[in-house]
């Protein structure tokens, strides 16, 4: 018989250790039950009125979008080429908001929040659109104030052109259903930016030039918590060298969701305007064109129970390490396997696989159980398309959340190896996961984001199926899921490394 030490044997021995303590097996089962149970129980604690009180219109793909701007246009039939020079675009007049880092006294105290979205900010551009209804299909070439030249269509496609600002020539060419965008510095040498096929472009479409200026987001602090808001902005642009085959009379229209404004009692759309000046036009516009997905996230909302399941996994992880030090079992372990690094690796692998299986089963079941309830509570299309397990972002959220739970359990194990006391290991881990969330909710501005990048709490970002957003007060919505899992991985690797060093250097 071959009694040589082998790693698979070591794994088997650690697995035997793990499964032979009934309390741990029960805790594992409890972790899964808590994840599923709390999620299902609190699914009805989620409610949204995003579909009843819409602040969006429905785009061509049935997604919620924002479509508000000032459009100077005329109908055109069939293939065409439209060229314009944007002579100037003045930056948006910001309504009394403090720039980040501006410490000047007095004035308004709200701090501007940078929105990195390519659909944010101000833009002057040309567009071909399916009529003037808000939310209809379109393709556009645009010069932005600080995001360069871009080509966008149907609120979802965004292509980057040159990074220039100031004066720029823009051109749209229609050939059948395909729209191609070009840009030029001098009107002679043209660079293609991209081609796109808008979903519903009729033979006779509206073509013209426009100005948009997305609302400015700001944070303000009061009452021990920070709040977020938005204020409308407007921008001016001068267009000249307008060249359109078979041009007729230009007409200016404010594109806006009439219904929304009537519901909100604003009495009509906010005003943009245009004036002809010599060979050109000066246009003032306000509003944003782009996706307007509600920030609330179904997947995240359905996974409330993860917090509870995580607690159970943390205690198993810590105990799997610290129980070795009670009653001196670690000596037996090291006499059986003198290569301590391998013992640590085997422990980590066995705990990791077990925790991952339990977590993944827990989050998948939690999502499936919570979804029908959430749908009843307003999380329904069009504001909230029904998620499916095979959607990329949903699958990512589930897999990464299970990975987050697993890594935190491993972190607890590593801290257990270092501290050798379960109370210390469990407390350290729980405090690092939960306290930043609680503190983060009362901190203003970007401080919570910074906390998410530096503590295990960042791992909560894995639960979101939607991109990070600056408009939610929840700290974990401020960083991306991959950043979140990276933070947790770094913590766990560092803790395991330290545990390995300590095992090698100190007596058992």
């Amino acid at each position, binding site marked *: 018989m071959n009694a040589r030490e082998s790693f698979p044997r070591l794994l088997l021995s650690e697995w035997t250790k793990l499964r032979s303590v009934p309390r741990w097996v029960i805790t594992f089962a409890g972790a899964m039950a808590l994840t599923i149970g709390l999620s299902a129980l609190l699914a009805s604690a989620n409610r*949204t009125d995003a579909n009843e009180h819409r602040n969006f219109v429905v785009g061509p793909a049935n997604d919620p979008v924002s479509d508000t701007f000032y459009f100077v246009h005329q109908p055109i039939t069939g293939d065409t080429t439209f060229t314009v020079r944007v002579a100037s675009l003045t930056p948006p007049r910001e309504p009394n908001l403090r720039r980040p880092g501006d410490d000047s006294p007095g004035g308004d105290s709200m701090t501007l929040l940078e929105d990195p979205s390519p659909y944010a900010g101000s833009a002057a551009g040309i567009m071909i659109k399916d009529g003037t209804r808000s939310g209809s299909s379109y393709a556009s070439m645009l010069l932005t104030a600080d995001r360069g030249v871009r080509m966008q269509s149907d609120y979802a496609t965004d292509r980057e052109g040159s990074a220039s600002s100031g004066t720029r020539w823009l051109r749209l060419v229609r050939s059948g259903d395909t729209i191609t965008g070009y840009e030029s510095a001098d009107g002679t040498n043209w660079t293609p930016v991209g081609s796109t096929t808008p979903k519903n472009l009729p033979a006779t479409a509206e073509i013209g030039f426009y100005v948009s200026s997305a609302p400015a987001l700001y944070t303000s602090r009061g009452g*021990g918590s920070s709040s977020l808001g938005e204020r409308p902005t407007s921008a001016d642009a001068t267009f000249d060298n307008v060249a359109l085959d078979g041009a007729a009379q230009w007409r200016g229209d404010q594109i806006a969701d009439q219904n929304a404004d009537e519901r909100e009692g604003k009495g009509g759309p906010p005003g943009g305007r245009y004036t002809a000046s010599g060979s050109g036009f000066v246009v003032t516009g306000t509003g944003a064109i782009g996706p307007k997905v509600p920030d609330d996230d179904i997947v995240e*909302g359905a996974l409330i129970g993860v917090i509870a399941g995580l607690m159970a996994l943390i205690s198993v992880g810590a105990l799997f390490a610290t129980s070795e030090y009670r009653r001196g079992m670690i000596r037996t372990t090291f006499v059986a396997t003198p290569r301590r690094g391998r013992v640590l690796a085997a422990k980590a692998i066995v705990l990791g696989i077990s925790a991952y299986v339990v977590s993944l089963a827990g989050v998948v079941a939690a999502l499936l159980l919570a979804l029908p309830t959430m749908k009843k509570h307003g999380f329904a299309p069009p504001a909230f398309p029904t998620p499916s397990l095979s959607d990329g972002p949903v699958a990512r959220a589930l897999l990464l959340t299970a990975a987050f739970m697993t890594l935190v359990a491993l972190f607890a194990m590593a801290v257990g190896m270092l501290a050798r006391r379960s109370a210390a290991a469990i*407390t350290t881990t729980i405090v690092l996961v939960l306290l930043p969330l609680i*503190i983060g909710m*009362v901190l203003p501005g970007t401080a919570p984001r910074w906390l998410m990048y530096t503590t295990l709490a960042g791992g909560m970002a894995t639960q979101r199926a939607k991109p990070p957003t600056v408009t939610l007060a*929840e700290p974990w919505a401020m960083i991306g899921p991959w950043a979140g899992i990276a933070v947790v991985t770094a913590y766990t690797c560092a803790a395991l490394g330290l545990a390995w060093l300590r095992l090698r250097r100190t007596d058992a």
Partner: protein
Amino acid sequence: MTALRAVRAEWTKLRTVSSTGWLLLGGIVATVALGWAITGSLDRRECDAPCLLDPVKLSLAGVRLGQVAVVILAVLAVTAEYATRTIQPTLAAVPRRSLVVLGKLVVVVGLTVAAGALGVAGSYVAAGFGLRGTGFAAPAWSNDLDLRAAAGSTIYLGLVAALAAGLGLLIRDTAGSVTAALALLYGAPVVASFVSDPRWEHRILRFSPMDAGLSIQATRNFAAEHIGPWAGIGVLSAYAGGALLLGLLLFALRDSR
């Protein structure tokens, strides 16, 4: 007389293990340090008019961190007896279970309240430095509401100790009790921030032991609190009392292994 002896024995037990002193010291330092860090980051000019920010409440935010030490101390006072099996000599020396629990409770809550008072007072002193130049007024001992916030935070810590000790009696295992106590205290506000229905958020925060208990720290903008100050202390007391009663019952009925 026998009750006094039980208290004295528990006091001797607690003061003769080094972890007690370190935990209390760590709890005080953590409380003061976090309060100082948060008050130091405030700026009157960043606060909208009407500015509802409560600098007193924020200067006591360290209690949320410092309570961790209290939880560990109180849990260990019970569960270490099972881990080290000193529960045998303990019960051989004091066979009446209720006296053992009484002794532990008096000592643990007493120590916590003493250390908590130091931490709270330290937080106010630190806030005096932290708030200097921020445009906010530092907490004042002469102000009734500030005094209530300080006394309430101290009472809160004492009740957290009682709750943790009760959980220790119920669960008897250090890891399990610490996890349960921290999950109960920290889990509720995080879950509340996850749910998107404000009525549920209100419900959860109203009956979560930490948020209800700490609503007594508010000195202004009371509309933002989910429960009244003394009602909040009542909610936490109900948790602590429930855990203790159930713990005592099981302690008296179960065999001591």
